[in-house]
């Protein structure tokens, strides 16, 4: 019996300890400052990992916050040199989540001078993935001892990271700045023929405005991340959504100090080498955007409020028209 108990207890404690050490070393949920084995932090659960990163850092140093979807995760917070920013954006992030997380950050004692909010048009056209979440909860981390030592999920994430089994093209470097994988596929877009007339849903506008109520004294800068012209045509224009999406963006940004739009057909969005899917742009592009957001550059993007709504819509459509004619695709209009 003694030998049995000795073997049993030794085995259990050895395996559990090994798994614990492995999980702490890879730290896929960012409890202990991320991966210590290699410089890759894979975004398994960005809501949780970003919260961990936020909670385990010196929160008082942040005078700037960034909210947005996975497109905004590629905006390097260090490229925004005027402030110390925390990038709280995550995959498939929606407006109601930004408002909830903004309140959470405020409750934790952070009082930013500046807030950047990514405004994605998909917030106003619901599908199953982006459906309005009536009850949003912040991904509060469990105590570390539960998350590390005894979590099969964490172990799976750790093993996937070590053996590079993850399929994510987007990842984070050691300093938690978003990057592209070297194996990112080449973007090969096509225009669709399908034409439908769909409608927008404006209920998320209120959540964008809510951020202003949470931080009434902060300078809030909205921005519409770049979208490739193919995606813009296929997902907005061809579905009859372009006008109403622009209207929603225009309305949502009214309570912000400035809002930039990088999503119209431009030298960034009409080429394919700087994106892998037409939505996620290379960090170099995002560095240029950062310069615009800090008003260090003006030849990129537009300021929405220099136009009225009609002019804003016309600007987008004329740019799209111009591009399509140039590419002999005018018949699609």
């Amino acid at each position, binding site marked *: 019996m003694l030998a049995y*108990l000795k073997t049993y207890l030794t085995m259990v404690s050895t*395996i*559990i300890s090994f798994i614990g050490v492995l999980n702490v070393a890879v730290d896929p949920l960012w409890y202990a400052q991320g991966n210590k084995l290699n410089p890759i932090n894979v975004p398994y659960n960005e809501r949780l990992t970003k919260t961990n990163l936020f909670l385990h850092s010196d929160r008082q140093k942040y005078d700037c916050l960034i909210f947005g979807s996975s497109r905004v995760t590629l905006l390097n917070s260090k490229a925004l040199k005027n402030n110390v920013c925390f990038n709280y954006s995550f995959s498939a992030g929606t407006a109601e989540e930004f408002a909830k997380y903004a309140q959470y950050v405020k409750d934790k004692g952070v009082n930013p001078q500046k807030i950047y909010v990514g405004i994605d048009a998909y917030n106003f056209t619901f599908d199953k993935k982006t459906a309005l979440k009536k009850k949003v909860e912040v991904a509060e981390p469990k105590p570390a001892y539960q998350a590390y030592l*005894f979590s099969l999920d964490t172990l799976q994430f750790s093993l996937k990271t070590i053996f590079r089994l993850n399929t994510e093209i987007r990842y984070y470097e050691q300093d938690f700045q978003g990057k592209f994988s070297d194996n990112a596929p080449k973007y090969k877009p096509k225009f669709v023929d399908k034409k439908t007339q769909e409608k927008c849903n404006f209920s998320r506008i209120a959540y964008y405005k809510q951020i202003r109520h949470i931080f009434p004294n902060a300078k809030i800068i909205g921005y519409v991340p770049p979208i490739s012209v193919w995606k813009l045509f296929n997902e907005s224009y061809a579905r009859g959504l372009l006008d109403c999406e622009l209207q929603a963006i225009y309305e949502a940004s009214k309570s912000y100090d400035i809002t930039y739009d990088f999503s119209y057909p431009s030298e960034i969005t009409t080429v394919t080498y700087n994106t892998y899917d037409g939505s996620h742009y290379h960090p170099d592009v995002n560095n240029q955007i950062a310069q615009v957001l800090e008003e260090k550059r003006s030849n990129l993007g537009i300021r929405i409020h220099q136009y009225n709504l009609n002019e804003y819509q016309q600007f987008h459509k004329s740019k799209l028209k111009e591009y399509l004619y140039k590419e002999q695709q005018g018949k699609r209009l």
Partner: protein
Amino acid sequence: MLFNSLEFIFLFLPISLFIFFFLGKYGYHRLAITWLVTASLFFYGWWNPRYLLLLLVSIGLNFFIGYTLNQLNSPVRKKTLLILGITANLIILGCFKYANFFVSSAADILGINFNLQNIILPLGISFFTFQQITYLVDSYRGETKDSKFVDYCLFITFFPKLISGPIVHHSEIMPQFADKTVCQFNLENMAVGITIFSLGLFKKVVFADNIAAYASPVFNTAAAGIFPTFLESWIGALAYTLQLYFDFSGYSDMAIGIARMFGIKLPVNFFSPYKATSISDFWRRWHITLSNFLRDYLYIPLGGNRKGEIRRSLNLMVTMLLGGIWHGEGWQFVFWGGLHGAYLTINHEWNVLQKKYDLKTDNWLSLKLGWFITFLAVVFGWVFFRSENMATALIIVKGMIGLNGLLFSTQIIESGLKKAFIDISILLAIVWLTPNVQEWMGKYDPVFNYEKVKKLSSNSLFWSRLQWQPNQTYALVISVLTVIALLHLTKVSEFLYFQF
């Protein structure tokens, strides 16, 4: 505190064991028993300290009544006191457990809109109330004369079985507490206890919690008024059948294993119930200690089978209806109890017919047919047991007989038909073809009454050769199972029977 929580496994249990055996080592037997009572009260209070008072008042009251019953000589006075004692226990149980049900049923009948504020059910109240009733009846019969208060406290509060049983009889456990060797550390008890606990933990967190992913969506969808198809309904019903078994038998194994670490043998609660070849056989194998309680303290006092066939059927029906109501408030539990009452009555009538016409039913085909019909009947009953209300149960039953369409829709069970089919098949193969934990551990008398249930065993020579032994191979196998179970603890879930 949950058995499947880190706090319990790595703090509460080792500390409790260490102090218990430390006191035992230096000959402080009474102190060790008192320590166990203290630890058990802490275990109970961890959930909600407010209800600790209720537990203590209930213990004090029942011990006093039991003590007085032992002192009284007048049969009339004794009977009156016994009735008063049982009534007091049932009133307390009824207030907490059924007040909402009675008020809402009365409001429905009268057509008025009236709701009580939801009363929170104190954890384990059904179990500790029943156990105290057995004590009162045994005191009335003069079988508890030498009880000491601390021993009685431990009899009720002993934490491995406090929340969800097994329901123990006074005579089964009090002599074990009185034995001074109980607090001497024993390697065999520890090895057997850890092994049984690990197997129970594995059954709960790996089998029960994972298979629940197929049951819950189907029952929740039906509760929302959406009609699951034939395949979905069967997947939901079978998954719940497996979930309930692995959950509750896993819990019982954990309780038995923990008690064994302390040198105490608890009675067996499950013995491969889905291998039963008749519904009577099923109730000899499912929640055995509750079945025994209902038999000894309800069915037999009602007259059992001593007053003719009609009266036996009536007694069976009353017993099973009350057994159903004991499980919870709601007409679905009443129906479930009544259904099993009807099953048992049919079963007995069939036995009578067999004897009358000398039908041979011990051949392979008859046994397999009996097993199949029993299993289907049990699965059908679980649909009512699991459903939020009768309407939900009927939606699923309609689905099971094909009235909601046959096709499989991936919207209800996200992982799809193939995965559900594979997972359910694996677990069905385990419950039908492999020995239960008690059989695996059979060489080491894992439970109090193992010899009694051993005759239900039907395992082949092949399986008996694989019985657990304290060797290196088993140490490796059990440690791997333990690690897998521990890795599932981050998804801590409550035991299904906590709600009863």
